[in-house]
């Protein structure tokens, strides 16, 4: 029995699957073009799964030439878990938002409110519409209200 070769396709596949998940949070989340639809990450994950399949075929189909009968299934399951976690986040978890059916609709009056600004000063919707913008003497044409989750 000859010397069996290292099955690097298995390891490359596993590392690409990890990279495909982790890089979303550390890199591709920053830009809307790669965040809204994580196509770069899907490409990396597809490449990773391709290498894994190739590595598993080598391990079990050409087992006289290649190692990996034990490492292969373990790396395969870990990789599938990483891909599954990513798909769960992208296709399910981040879509769990309230319906907000009662939110004001186009043409309706925007509900009034009184809140404190970053200088602890009370401002209302009416005052925001009446007060001139910085570097201006006239009130604004309109107002963007941007509700966000915050860092609680």
């Amino acid at each position, binding site marked *: 029995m000859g010397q069996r070769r290292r099955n690097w396709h298995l390891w490359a596949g596993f590392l690409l699957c990890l990279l495909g998940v982790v890089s979303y949070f550390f890199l591709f989340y920053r830009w809307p073009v790669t965040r809204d639809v994580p196509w770069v990450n899907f490409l990396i994950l597809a490449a990773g799964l391709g290498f894994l399949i190739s590595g598993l075929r080598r391990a079990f189909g050409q087992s006289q030439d290649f190692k990996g009968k034990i490492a292969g299934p373990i790396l395969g399951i870990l990789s599938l878990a990483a891909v599954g976690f990513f798909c769960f986040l992208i296709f399910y978890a981040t879509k769990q938002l309230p319906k907000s059916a009662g939110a004001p609709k186009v043409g309706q009056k925007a509900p009034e409110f009184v809140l404190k600004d970053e200088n602890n000063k009370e401002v209302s919707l009416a005052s925001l519409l009446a007060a001139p913008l910085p570097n201006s003497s006239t009130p604004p044409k309109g107002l963007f209200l*941007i509700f966000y989750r915050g860092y609680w």
Partner: protein
Amino acid sequence: MPEIQQLGVRAVAISVDSPEQSRDLCKKAGFTFEFLSDPNTTAIRAYDLLHVGAGAEGHDVARPGEFLVDSNGIVRWANLTEDFRVRARAEQFIAQAKQLK
């Protein structure tokens, strides 16, 4: 968003964060728009954007939502994302601000 201001539209961000947290965020990110603090979620509930228990330690927070209100207080544009990874983009805000008379 300095372009928004140049188009004569004010941009205001609202969250449950305290005024201090918002001020720190402003400084750090160099934001030019105003931040309002809604720790009791009164405005967030008035706009039906409450996301119960979705914040850290189970705090109630706002789900993302963007509105353009004209000078008469009428909503001219509303954007309620169905996925909190997907937000309105700067180009959308600018396009909406340009349409406002």
